């Protein structure tokens, strides 16, 4: 079962970290995974995005043309990537920053005020993790336990103190109705 | 009977291909004598430039590599950083060091690379037969400044020693000449000091040597010595430019 996901938002919203985290979790489960980020000057101050492909067989291209799912944290990213979503695909969007009604008949649209939720939980910067939690609750591509393990693997050294916050954000996203 | 003056061991017996009166041969011998006197022949690696001294590896009796035009400081950096206990020096002309290789020159000096640079300044491109160099004097006629070097057209001659003296990374900088026996002996002292700075691990040393180029200057040997003394020395004053070891 192949899952091709594009995560996109502002530079600074933790887009790359979200993709790496999911990739790490997939690797922990022994799955095949590729992660490909937008990079260089285009990321700074502009939109950032990354492609995560998870499969149980060898993956060829890491570049995603028509994703199965989109995790979108800001408006410009919605405009850029929505046309590429596969028919019947999943679109999880951050409704705090995207007020538009998405009139899309052939996609499953899930609106989630990720930035609001993150702010209420004490740290606006974990909106990405809240959104990832919600996405994983719908697309059970990896287990929650693997993501928690992945967080531990990635948040080391000074970043270790952010572990609790990220854990909480992930679970909040998972449980958001 | 005792041998008083003879070819140092660090020179091969190969005949130099330099023109009559050229200063390169003198400086080759000085470098070789200093290396002999310091007992470092077996741990020295020289770097020959592109320019008249391109064949220097045929004249020196120790390990020598070529380098592309202007890049000896980078090549020296690679060798010295990997083999820090060897003695590494570059031998470069004015075109090599101060034109095409100025970036490498400045940055090796600025990094304080523990190398020695022997810089032959004869104010002209010799090997390519007489074009204007970055150190050609104002008014100097060359094959590419047929009306004399005009600063509006070609800028000013670069005083490399003074330029490098502003860099924190440089330890010992001197300017010498080989127009007379006295200056030759002074030059040897400076070259020896430069190598001693390296041996003591004190960083970057450079000796600039004003040298005559009679054929490309279109002068006789005596006239070219006069040119060094009158014209070059007044723009490029001799002496120690910087010596951090004395601080």
């Amino acid at each position: 079962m192949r899952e091709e996901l594009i995560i996109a938002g502002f530079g600074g919203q933790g887009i790359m970290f979200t993709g790496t985290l999911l990739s790490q979790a997939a690797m922990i489960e022994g799955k095949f995974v590729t992660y490909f980020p937008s990079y260089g000057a285009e990321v700074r101050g502009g939109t950032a995005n990354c492609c995560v492909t998870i499969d149980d067989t060898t993956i060829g291209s890491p570049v995603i043309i028509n994703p199965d799912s989109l995790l979108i944290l800001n408006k410009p990213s919605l405009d850029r990537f929505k046309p590429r979503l596969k028919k019947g695909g999943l679109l999880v969007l951050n409704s705090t920053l995207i007020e538009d009604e998405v009139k899309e008949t052939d996609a499953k649209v899930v609106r989630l005020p990720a930035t609001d939720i993150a702010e209420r939980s004490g740290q606006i910067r974990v909106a990405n993790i809240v959104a990832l939690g919600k996405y994983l609750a719908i697309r059970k591509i990896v287990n929650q336990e693997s993501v928690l393990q992945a967080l531990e693997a990635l948040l080391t050294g000074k970043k270790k103190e952010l572990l609790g916050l990220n854990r909480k954000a992930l679970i909040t996203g998972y449980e958001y109705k | 009977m005792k041998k008083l003056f003879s070819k140092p061991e660090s020179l091969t017996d190969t005949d130099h291909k330099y023109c009559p009166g050229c200063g390169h041969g003198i400086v080759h011998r000085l470098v070789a004598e200093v290396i002999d006197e310091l007992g470092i022949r077996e741990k020295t690696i020289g770097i020959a430039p592109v320019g008249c001294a391109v064949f220097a590896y045929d004249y020196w009796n120790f390990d020598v590599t070529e380098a592309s035009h202007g890049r000896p400081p980078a090549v020296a950096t690679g060798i010295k950083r990997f083999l820090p206990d060897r003695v590494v020096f570059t031998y470069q002309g004015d075109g090599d060091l101060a034109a095409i290789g100025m970036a490498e020159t400045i940055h090796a000096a600025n990094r304080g690379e523990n190398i020695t640079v022997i810089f032959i300044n004869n104010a002209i491109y010799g090997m390519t037969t007489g074009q204007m160099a970055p150190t050609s004097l104002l008014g100097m006629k060359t094959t590419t400044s047929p009306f004399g070097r005009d600063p509006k057209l070609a800028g000013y001659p670069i005083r490399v020693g003074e330029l490098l003296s502003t860099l924190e990374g440089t330890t010992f900088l001197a300017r010498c000449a080989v127009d007379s026996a006295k200056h030759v002996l002074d030059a040897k002292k400076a070259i020896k000091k430069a190598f001693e700075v390296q041996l003591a691990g004190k960083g970057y040393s450079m000796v600039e040597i004003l040298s005559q180029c009679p054929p490309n200057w279109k002068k006789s040997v005596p006239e070219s010595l006069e040119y060094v003394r009158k014209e070059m020395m007044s723009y490029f004053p001799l002496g120690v430019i910087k010596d951090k070891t004395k601080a």
Partner: protein
Amino acid sequence: MPKIIIAQNKCKGCELCILTCPKKNIRLSQKMNKKGFHYIEIIDPDKCNACGLCFQVCPDVAIEIWK
């Protein structure tokens, strides 16, 4: 009396030594070497005090001095 050995085939007749010798004791030979240069010769070996200044300025290391 010092012994001065001149490598005639190394000499290019540049005259740097002639200009340098404090005793004015060096001149160009009438003869030419293999390279086609008039090489140097010592005028009066007895006059030489082996100061070595000619050696210092010789670009071709064509002079060797014993004493």
